[in-house]
């Protein structure tokens, strides 16, 4: 499952955020109280054991797999809790597991995580109960078919409900905290970890089967550790894959930075702005990644251009020299050939100087034949150039920037320009912009 792990960039903070957090916490506490009063109460022994497992699973979670979230197999413990200790029990397990969090500097985030997790446990357990899930020793003498109908199916439903609650609450808080559109974030969480969440929920079912029908009781906790650790290893691989991509990109940017130090900062800003625009355009999660990679590496071809040319001011270059520099996008796209995960980003780098009306270089593509990554990179670099132009007025408004971009109607995709204006309006300028640029 996922939780909020990283301190936010603090650029966007909706004033609704405190209200949202308070609402989630209040709902969670109310759920706990009501379930304690109305529903059957769990045995103390199993409850303590599951709480312990929950705490441990959260402590050994895989921290920050990108996207400002982290993974743990707490969700599996919660699914099992639904059948073993009931609604109130699952609520307790969820709330307690997240409360001890030494890595989290903000107590509000800890409170939110605990409340979300309590709600999630309670929602899953309630689903299980409403679908007629069997409880405790009632499972001991069931036939295989009965076990499937009264334990398997309700538990799977509980698993899916838990996943949805998790994804929507997380997307809500990230929307208010960092301005990421709710739908984009929801799809991102569901496509990133949703499949794993539901798939590994099966281990929760195995846990329950070992506990009651196989008669292993608390000893099953020890045996189920092996599949749980296997799941953790798999999560780690997921995080490692994302990290291996980030590291590869960072290495390439560092190589570029040894040649042209200013390019490092330009890449960072381009990446941030491009990601915002891609989110604003509502692109699918995979494409947002491609756009970000293309923007980060849009100047990587400078490695193939003589340093003498790069250091000259643009106005003093002859047309031939200009063409050599502009050829960097073709060089760059060729340079990163052979890195599989950058395959899609290559076309975004190659076509960044195409014009929307089809008179650009290198291939004269027009309109939507230009890859969306290239259209976005064109706008981000143009915005960066306008803002950083030494001749420009010290204070530029977003409207001014938009006006400059629209002054050349054939150059950019108007939809991307509009999305850029909305994104800048929401987030302000990318972080490393100097202070005199007002937003």
């Amino acid at each position: 499952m996922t939780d909020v792990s990283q301190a936010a960039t603090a650029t966007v903070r909706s004033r609704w955020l405190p209200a949202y957090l308070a609402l989630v916490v209040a709902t969670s506490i109310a759920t706990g109280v009501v379930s304690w009063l109305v529903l059957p109460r769990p045995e103390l022994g199993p409850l303590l054991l599951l709480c312990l497992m929950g705490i441990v699973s959260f402590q050994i979670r895989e921290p920050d797999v990108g996207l400002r979230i982290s993974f743990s197999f707490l969700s599996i413990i919660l699914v099992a809790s639904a059948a073993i200790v009931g609604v109130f029990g699952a609520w307790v397990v969820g709330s307690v597991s997240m409360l001890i969090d030494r890595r989290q500097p903000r107590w509000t985030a800890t409170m939110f995580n605990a409340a979300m997790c309590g709600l999630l446990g309670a929602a899953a357990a309630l689903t299980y109960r409403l679908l007629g899930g069997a409880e405790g020793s009632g499972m001991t003498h069931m036939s295989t078919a009965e076990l499937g109908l009264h334990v398997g199916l309700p538990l799977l439903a509980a698993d899916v409900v838990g996943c949805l609650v998790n994804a929507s609450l997380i997307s809500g808080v990230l929307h208010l905290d960092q301005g990421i559109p709710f739908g984009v974030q929801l799809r991102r969480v569901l496509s990133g970890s949703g499949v794993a969440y539901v798939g590994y929920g099966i281990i929760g079912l195995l846990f329950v089967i070992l506990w009651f029908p196989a008669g292993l009781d608390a000893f099953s906790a020890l045996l189920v550790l092996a599949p749980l650790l296997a799941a953790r290893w798999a999560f780690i691989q997921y995080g490692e894959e994302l990290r291996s991509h980030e590291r590869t990109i960072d290495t390439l940017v560092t190589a570029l930075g040894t040649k042209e130090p200013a390019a490092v900062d330009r890449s960072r800003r381009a990446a941030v702005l491009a990601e915002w625009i891609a989110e604003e355009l509502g692109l699918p999660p995979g494409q947002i990644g491609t756009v970000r990679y293309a923007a980060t590496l849009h100047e990587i071809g400078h490695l193939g251009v003589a340093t003498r040319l790069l250091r000259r001011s643009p106005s003093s270059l002859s047309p031939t020299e200009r063409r050599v520099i502009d050829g960097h996008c073709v060089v760059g796209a060729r340079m990163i050939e052979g890195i599989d995960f950058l395959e899609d980003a290559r076309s975004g780098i190659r076509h960044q100087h195409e014009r929307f009306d089809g008179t650009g270089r290198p291939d004269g593509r027009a309109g939507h034949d230009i890859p969306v990554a290239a259209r976005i990179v064109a706008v981000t670099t143009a915005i960066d150039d306008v803002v950083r132009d030494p001749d420009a007025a010290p204070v530029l408004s977003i409207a001014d920037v938009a006006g400059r971009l629209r002054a050349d109607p054939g150059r950019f995709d108007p939809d991307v320009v509009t999305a850029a204006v909305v994104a800048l309006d929401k987030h302000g300028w990318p972080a490393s912009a100097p202070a005199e640029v007002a937003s």
Partner: protein
Amino acid sequence: MNGALRREPVAGVFGVLCLLASTVAVIQTGDVPSLNDSTTVWVVAAFGVTIVLGEWFHISAPGFRGAAPIAMAAAFGLALTTELPGGVPVPYGAPFALTVTAAAMALGTTVRVAARRDTSLVDTAGRFVAIVVATVVYRVVVLGQQPGEPARETVAAPWQQAALLLGICLLALVTDALFTSLLRGLSAGANVRRTFIEEFRSSFALSIAVAVTGVLIALAAPPLGIAALPLFLIPLVLTLFAFRRYVSIRATYLQSIRTLSRLTDAAGYTPSGHSERVAALSVQVGRELGLSERELLDLEYAALLHDIGQVALVEPIPGGATVLAAPADQRRIEADTVAIVRETGVFEGVARILEHQTTPYRQVRELGEEIPLTSRIVKVVNAYEDLTAGARSARAREAAVERIYLGLGYEYDPRVVDALLKSLGSPAHA
């Protein structure tokens, strides 16, 4: 590498003998369940098919022992399952269970060989040895089951039963590692104890997961029947997908190294193919000096990346030959190279090699500084490649070796230079 050729047939013959022996045992003891009993037929068929599939989907990666976790877990399940739903005991004993396992493993492996997928008969034979140990220890020694008779009911509490089965599986896995390392160690003339420790360590985590899954299948068979098999295999199957991911992560790093090594070519700082040539020759020299496979891999990566720091230069060095550059410039290039490689965060070993690639050998001799042998190799081979500038003629080679001899013992490690001459296949130049 004669040993490598011989141990596979040995393992193959061993496997065929096992199959024959268990079949003979079945016929001798009459340990065949009645075909009219449809539940038993289903159970045996499900286990058999799963083992065949598991052998087909076996996994292997560099630095990983070949394994077939699905097949292994199913085979443990078959060996340890003695009771089905409703308290019905399974009507077969050790010989029959072993024959089914042997036949299924043989079938899966044959299909793999026929499809020309990479297979290791040693690993397959080792897996079967493990199953023999588990089956015999549990069914014959612990339960005292007679062939053809159902096993008697266990009286132990469920958790004691679980602990017992887990212990048996662990014993079986240790036997497996012992068997394969014995076969490997003897045929390659290597140290058996070291091979055993390496085999066991590299497969430990996966083996535990496999053993537990096998035990869980057997424990869940009384309430769930054969449904326990697919259900409890799911976590392992998911782990296999994660394993694919693990392999692709390694591939990403390798691809980025290749890309980085070509950057200086593309930017015109080094003659094209320089890094690849240095890498190929360095690995040859490393082999000559008896480096381990792991060190050779780091050496290859380091050689591929050794010039990447040149991208920071405003004016390329003529011919990209760092050996002709001033020592201070060499050091700056080296520092930039190390900084870029460190950024990857995973190639610490490579960065350490590159840190010393320009250090003269005399600092080892006079100051007692520790310079890795791999760094000294990169230094010598790079100098040789720079000096020949890719030319392969005997004269260019003579001239380059002559230059290196001038720095022998001062700049370059004489041992490495000797190894270089050997791998160039040239007669003594001195």
